[in-house]
């Protein structure tokens, strides 16, 4: 069950993990997604290896406690998106 608002995607209001084809992984609250990409609010980004943590290690910690937001709003182009998962299901 998401937070249903008209004209928004099913993930609207849900905190998601957006893995990319590159070194970054994003965690944030999905505002909307479509064929162009995904918009996240209150988002954090982690680069593989930063702080000695892999993407997977970062996501595992995020799943336990959440993330400190670095960006109020982010757009991730579809061509960079490798996968989108609900953080609550990690």
């Amino acid at each position, binding site marked *: *069950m*998401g*937070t249903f608002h008209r004209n928004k995607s099913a993930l609207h*209001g*849900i*905190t998601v993990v957006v893995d990319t084809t590159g070194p970054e992984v994003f965690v944030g609250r999905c505002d909307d997604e479509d064929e162009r990409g995904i918009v996240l609010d209150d988002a954090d980004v982690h680069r593989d290896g930063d702080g000695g943590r892999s993407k997977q290690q970062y996501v595992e910690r995020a*799943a*336990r*406690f*959440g*993330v*400190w*937001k670095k960006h109020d709003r982010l757009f991730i182009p579809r061509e960079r998106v490798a996968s989108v998962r*609900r*953080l*609550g299901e990690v």
Partner: protein
Amino acid sequence: MPYSPLLVKPMREELTSAGVKELLSPLDVDAFMSERSGTAMLVVNSVCGCAAGMARPGVRLALRHAHRPDRVASVFAGQDLEATARARGYFPDIPPSSPSIAFMKDGELVYFMPRHRIEGRDAEAVARELMAVFEEHCAAPEAAASPAPPVNVAGSTAH
């Protein structure tokens, strides 16, 4: 800017009517957190849909379980700003999240349910996870005490 007190009153009462103590000031928070013995649960309440549909009813359902924390309190994010900030200050390594639920045993945080583990679920799922925490950490009720009413998480809306 905080919402109208009139608007949030029922959101507060949904928890207080289930025995949750509201912490309205930093002093209230300090008093609650300074009592370290036993088990305590702190709910960060909020006006969002996750709190309305999942967190508050989930907490109400869970508190009907035979095992329950010794003390339960809430702060209201976006409303009681100083109290909420003070409460979050007790968990400096945990990102702010509302709604969220922290569970302490003998003053140590042993469990935390952030917003993303509330959103997208239902009240029963939230309650089940909380009750599992209660069963793990809370003392069994005295044998002589009155038995708690059965918890039917499948069919109850607990309002």
